[in-house]
């Protein structure tokens, strides 16, 4: 297989905790703590986990919207962390992001046309204004909105339509990778399915790769080819979407899957109810981060962090049960 489009190796983002009058650093919040994965050309990589697990920080660190504190990000053969500001800006033409909140991520004072033209102007695409206007109309049609509405403002659109505008903005520069950070979690189910289908269509048409970040397992499973499950700043399991669902290996993945309510009143299953809450990422538990809530916890789990291992072809897990 050819070189992956994006390679993330040991990505780290530690936020300092400052205390006292002198604002001295008294520890770190390890939001992302050694995350590694590949995204292949034209595939969807899902990143799933509960709030505070570091999935959004991972997404933003890849684009360097948050500056990572360690690790390597290789995009298209280039080490993204070594690029200067202007080079980074050029690189972002190929890597775009779609945000969660369709209400907050569009400038309310810009018309849709201005919003979609801005990235084209920054990257010097499509020559003159007439050409850009044509492209804006095309983009709106691509995401299922009427091109005639380009002179309207974001508030004139519904939530689902705004999310389409956010996607059109990401598409404006013909990216090869889109990081979609909870793109459908603010939407109602009937509208959510419209947007998921749109993302699917765009991938088929333009061969864009996605890093799809979400907390909803059913949504992630539906859209992704491969999925990484995050817990407290680390990926604990990585597997193809179908395999992850039919045979979850890590006890956390098992608990997470069993907690999802199934829309079928006659569906029966054994539910694993996790005790307690997510520990604070500033004071993660020793050994395996998941051990205090794990039903299969062994002595070794309390002291030694498990290794990240490929246990079956294309299936990775960090758990002592499989060592």
């Amino acid at each position, binding site marked *: 297989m050819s070189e992956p489009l994006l390679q993330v190796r040991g990505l780290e983002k530690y936020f300092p905790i400052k205390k006292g009058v002198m604002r001295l650093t008294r520890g770190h919040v390890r939001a992302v703590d050694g995350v590694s994965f590949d995204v292949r050309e034209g595939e969807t990589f899902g990143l799933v986990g*509960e709030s505070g697990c570091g999935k959004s920080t991972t997404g933003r660190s890849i684009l360097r919207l948050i500056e990572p504190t360690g690790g390597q990000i290789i995009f298209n053969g280039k080490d993204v962390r070594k690029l200067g500001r202007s080079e980074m800006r050029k690189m972002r033409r190929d890597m775009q992001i779609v945000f969660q909140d369709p209400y907050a991520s569009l400038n309310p004072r810009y018309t849709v046309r201005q919003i979609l033209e801005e990235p084209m102007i920054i990257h010097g695409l499509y020559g003159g204004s007439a050409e850009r206007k044509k492209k804006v109309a095309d983009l709106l049609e691509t995401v299922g909105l009427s091109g005639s509405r380009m002179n309207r403002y974001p508030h004139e659109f519904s939530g689902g339509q705004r999310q389409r505008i956010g996607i059109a903005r990401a598409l404006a520069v013909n990216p090869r990778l889109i990081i979609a950070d909870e793109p459908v979690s603010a939407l109602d189910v009937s509208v959510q*399915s419209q947007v998921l289908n749109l993302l699917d269509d765009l991938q088929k048409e333009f061969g864009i790769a996605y890093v799809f970040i979400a907390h909803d397992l*059913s949504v992630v499973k539906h859209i992704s080819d491969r999925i990484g499950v995050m817990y407290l700043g680390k990926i604990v399991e990585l597997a193809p979407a179908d395999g992850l669902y039919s045979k979850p290996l890590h006890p956390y993945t098992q*608990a997470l899957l069993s907690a*999802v309510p*199934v829309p079928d009143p006659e569906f029966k299953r054994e539910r694993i109810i996790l005790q307690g*809450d997510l520990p604070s990422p500033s004071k993660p538990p020793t050994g395996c981060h998941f051990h205090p809530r794990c039903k299969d916890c062994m002595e070794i789990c309390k002291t030694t962090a498990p290794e990240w291992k490929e246990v079956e072809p294309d299936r990775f897990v960090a758990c002592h049960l499989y060592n």
Partner: protein
Amino acid sequence: MSTLLEVSGVTTSFKTANGFLPAIEDVSFTIKKGETLGIVGESGCGKSVTSLSIMQLLTANGKIERGSIRFNGRELVGLKDNEMRKVRGNDIAMIFQEPMTSLNPVHKIGRQIGESLRIHKGYGKAQARAKAIELLKLVGIPRAEEIVDEYPHRLSGGMRQRVMIAIAMACNPQLLIADEPTTALDVTIQAQILDLMRKLKAELDMSIMLITHDLGVVAEMCDRVVVMYAGKVVEQGNVKDIFRNPSHPYTVGLLSSIPRLEGRQERLSSIPGNVPSLELMPAGCRFASRCPHATQRCVTEEPSLLPVSGEHDARCWLMDEKGVAV
């Protein structure tokens, strides 16, 4: 089973720049003793307005225009404020979606749980505190003796929702209205809270009205379901009928647009378009503009709730014996 709550023909309107507009219209349903009723629908369908109408917690620009709400046979609409206050928190309790904002940040947990006990049951300070500790243990909070003296910001989201439930449980209500109780929580925490609600319902023999947009939660928790769309009840029935034989095209669309964990779907089906706004409510069926089966009759004439089978009704001309071709 006897009827605990009977809502019939309730229309609640809100004052807007264009005069009073109804957010819910002619809403009717019943909740039996010991039953969990689910109210499902997407944002803006009127499910929260329905619960606020029952509790009479509407904002100043809203009012119940028509209809009756009977609790244990007693009419609640038109009750004086101080009479209603005796019902609220005592006979009917409510928990809200946002555990972060529905607790008072400047009062200790114990005082917030004890408040309704002191008001409704005339408990003294020490007695209320002791009962608060007992309630915290009931909802599964560890170190209840310490937590009772903590402020809400010290607790996580799941713990705060447990405290909200403890407050609601304080006076042994006969009806618990839960408005999206787990929407703001992570799925593993949601599983804990739903489990707790099921356990309390069995132990304390109460009824639950569960408002949610999540059909998975409905399937898991509810005995009967009311589906709302654009301020109207469009379908109701017991949970198996709704999931096995959804009859209103909106319910059908909703059920088929959720991604499933099991199996592989190439493409999700989706409902085109959006919910009509309050100002531009169509004259006929409110779902007609998005409905794959809509006919001329649907555009001009609004269907009433028509029987599908037994206690299963749908507001759709497809259910009419004469059919839609008329």
